[in-house]
């Protein structure tokens, strides 16, 4: 089931070094790119059907085409490498194992959107990754792929690596921009959207690492080659991070559209012997949980996920077996989102803390049935009332556990405290 499109050079020793990467095809597509008009590159990416791999799945080429025409301001690219959603661990492989694929993708993107400056916003905790990335960027400058000329072409491009300071919310596009500008990482109200008014007030495109890293393959092999993978509406491949209580957790590159249960069984080795599948978090902690019987016809693509009232997200699949205490899992979940709320908007700032305290109260055995209903109501009261969707990430997932595992919450309320673990 596994494929090697993005991970083609992952197994090659020293592929993070520029000479090894070049021997294996890195930067080979630049001449072709430069022979095209920027608009043609955008069209090609559009026709490949590539969708944003940060979680929202917005078509990448379409996003680029939102840049205003005839602008006299500089255009920026900000590459979102703030990979912080719990259960998501895909971009870090690219950063360490094949950073030149990302750099080549940045050159392609910047050429297409006519930008001379790209920022890579990398999560502060990624110390190994930032070293590998910076070393690769230094190599690329040395080799003439970055700087005043690119591969001998009269085209200037600089890449600046900006390290975050430990805030999940800075993965939100506009909080990311605020953070690059040196401000407190808080999402901005939209409109204006970054494509019109982004970094330093200039038009800015923000793309996920994996989206950008997909560009060299698409430009080298064409849109059809990319569309040969995946489904019609969700083409291509994805780096799936499979974690949780499976026999072979890890990062696997798979085409989109595969049945999730089959992937868990055949790729990740299935749940441990003697245990039963209890639930699946399909795409990072913010995506609503799926029950085993709901997962029967669930496939790993945007459309199937939406049809099952959950989200494809970041491809971080968490497998939960019968040892998992869902109430404690929810406590853990809310703890995270409460801790990471920027504190700007009233509902998120005040509401998530309240929800956390109610769940803790339930776990202490002091809860009532009314508290479960209050939690559900608070999910409604908080959701989509805020500048960004951080609180919605918490409430949409929390609501799914409250609805699908209500009996576990009631068991706590009725004095039947669980002996299960929180994962």
């Amino acid at each position: 089931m596994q494929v090697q499109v993005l991970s083609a050079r992952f197994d090659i020793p020293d592929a993070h070094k520029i000479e090894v990467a070049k021997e294996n095809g890195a930067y080979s597509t630049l001449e072709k790119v430069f022979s095209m008009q920027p608009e043609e590159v955008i069209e090609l990416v559009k026709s490949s059907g590539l969708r944003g791999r940060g979680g929202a799945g917005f078509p990448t080429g379409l996003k680029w085409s939102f840049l205003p025409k005839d602008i006299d301001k500089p255009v920026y690219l900000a590459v979102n490498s703030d990979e912080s959603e719990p259960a998501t661990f895909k971009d870090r492989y690219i950063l360490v194992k094949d950073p030149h694929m990302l750099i080549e993708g940045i050159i392609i993107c910047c050429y297409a959107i006519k930008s001379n400056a790209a920022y890579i916003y990398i999560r502060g905790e990624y110390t190994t990754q930032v070293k590998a990335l910076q070393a690769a960027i230094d190599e690329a400058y040395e080799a003439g792929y970055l700087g005043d000329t690119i591969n001998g072409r009269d085209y200037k491009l600089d890449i600046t690596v900006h390290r975050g300071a430990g805030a999940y919310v800075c993965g939100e596009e506009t909080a990311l921009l605020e953070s690059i500008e040196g401000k407190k990482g808080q999402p901005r109200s939209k409109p204006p959207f970054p494509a019109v008014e982004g970094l330093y007030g200039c038009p800015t495109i923000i793309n996920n690492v994996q989206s950008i890293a997909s560009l060299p393959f698409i430009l080298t092999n064409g849109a059809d080659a990319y569309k040969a993978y995946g489904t019609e509406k969700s083409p291509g491949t994805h780096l799936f991070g499979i974690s949780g209580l499976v026999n072979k957790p890890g990062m696997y590159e798979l085409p989109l559209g595969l049945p999730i249960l089959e992937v868990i069984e055949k790729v990740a080795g299935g749940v441990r012997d003697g245990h039963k599948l209890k639930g699946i978090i399909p795409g990072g902690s913010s995506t609503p949980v799926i029950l085993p019987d709901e997962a029967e016809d669930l496939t790993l693509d945007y459309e199937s996920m939406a049809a099952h009232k959950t989200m494809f997200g970041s491809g971080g699949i968490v497998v939960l077996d019968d040892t998992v205490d869902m109430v404690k899992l929810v406590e853990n979940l809310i703890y995270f989102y409460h801790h990471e709320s920027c504190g700007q908007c009233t509902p998120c700032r005040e509401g998530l803390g309240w929800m956390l305290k109610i769940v803790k109260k339930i776990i202490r055995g002091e809860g009532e049935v009314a508290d479960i209903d209050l939690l559900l109501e608070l999910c409604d009261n908080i959701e989509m009332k805020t500048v960004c969707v951080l609180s919605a990430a918490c409430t949409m997932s929390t609501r799914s556990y409250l609805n699908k595992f209500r009996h576990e919450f009631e068991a706590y309320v009725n004095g039947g405290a669980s002996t299960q673990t929180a994962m």
Partner: protein
Amino acid sequence: MADKVKLFVNGQEVEVESGKNLIDAIGAVGIEIPHLCYHPALGADGNCRMCLVGIEDGRPPIVPACKTKAAEGMKVLLDADHIKKIQHDVMELELINHPIDCPICDQAGECKLQDYYMKYDGQKSRMTVKPVMKAKKLDFGAGVVHDQERCILCARCVRFTRQITKTGELGIVNRTDYARVNIFPGRPLANRYALNVVDLCPVGAMTSSDFRFKQRAWFLTKSPSICQGCSKGCNIFIDHNREKYKDDVIYRYRPRLNEKVNGYFICDEGRMTYKAENDNRLTTGIVSGKETGLSEAVEATRRLISEAKKTVFLVSPNNTLEQMYAIKAFAAEAGAALSGFSDGYIQEGDADGYLIQDDKSANRASFELLGIEGSKDGFDKAVADADLVISFNNDLSKSLAEADLNALLEKAQLVYIGTSLGTCASKAAVALPIASYSEDCGSLINIDQVLQQFAVAVVKNEPAANLIEVVQQLGGSVAGVKEARAGLMESVAALKDVNLEEVPEEGIALTDNEVSNVAA
């Protein structure tokens, strides 16, 4: 005239100004959209979420009104159930960690949380878990005391120090419900407008160390007036109260909006000038060091005038236009010389290009209008052969060194008709108490030639006579403010087209164009 657009609020068509956000545009026609973080002087931030309104057929269907411009044909929903629920829910969330210590909170009675709770929430607390505990009574400097628990993180104060004073002392530290407003360690509020954050705070999180715990807001009478701390003429409210068995006392000044003069703010020095209205006041006549009634002091003064070979009337740049007119008329009648010497009221280099001016007097511009000469030379010439100087609330000790003042008083006697005790009152042969501006009324012209009027705010248990009355008792011919105004309109060319009996609240700019505009 600004462009108008027609839009619908709850299905009803209203015509509003275009280009404004929904809060201001719809608010101008009397429909309130609740909001906590938005302030017209600080712009929209969008953090409180209280102003979320529905837009029928809109994308997105729910928007923050503070960030949404009024547009033709827009269908704004305010009283739809889902919008009312949002207002209710946001209020609940604002209050879960709020201490609700209204009984000991200075803001009670003028608190947006209280008002909005009554209007938009009104439900019992569902908080059964411990609220977030934060720090209280933090000294932020400049007389500002902060209570982090009451704070709703609207960031108005933070934006004020960033956008208005550009000093940036305040910030919000930490995230989530640990977020709090704070100063940087060891760097307190250090700007001359800091106390405006107390007015800006929609709740009781920012309190003034000068005012806190002194009065309940609902007992205060809030009288509009003009600050007389400098020549800017900022518009203020005089908040005062007569407690049972006590006298009418001023507790604070607060800024009053006047787009043409001071906008929404005032400086801290001006704000504190209220103390001089309460304290250290001259309340009795003084003749030869002995306290007397006013009539004895008036009698003594009349005698001094009749005996004097040459008298100089010393006008104060704080006298109102009407007072100056009455004094000038009296000077002509009594054959006295007239001087407005008051160099000591000017603090060279103190102005900051915003509100604070060098000239710490309120009405020097009227000198020019009435031809009152204020130079040191003119004063020296006038007093050279004088044996009597009558100060009309001009504190000469500000403008003359002590030795010079003493030398002057060796050859001339001083009559001080004034509001306050101090050097002049103690050195004067006769001192007469008068009403200060908070107890009086009149017109002032500020440094930008804007003529404004203020009315009587405070009425003391034993009101002092106003200056024009005293001038009349001394022999002056102007009977009162009304007569002074009539005389001014008749005799002063610049006021020919100004109706001093009907000066609009925002004042009249005395430039050629403006006067003709107003007259039309």
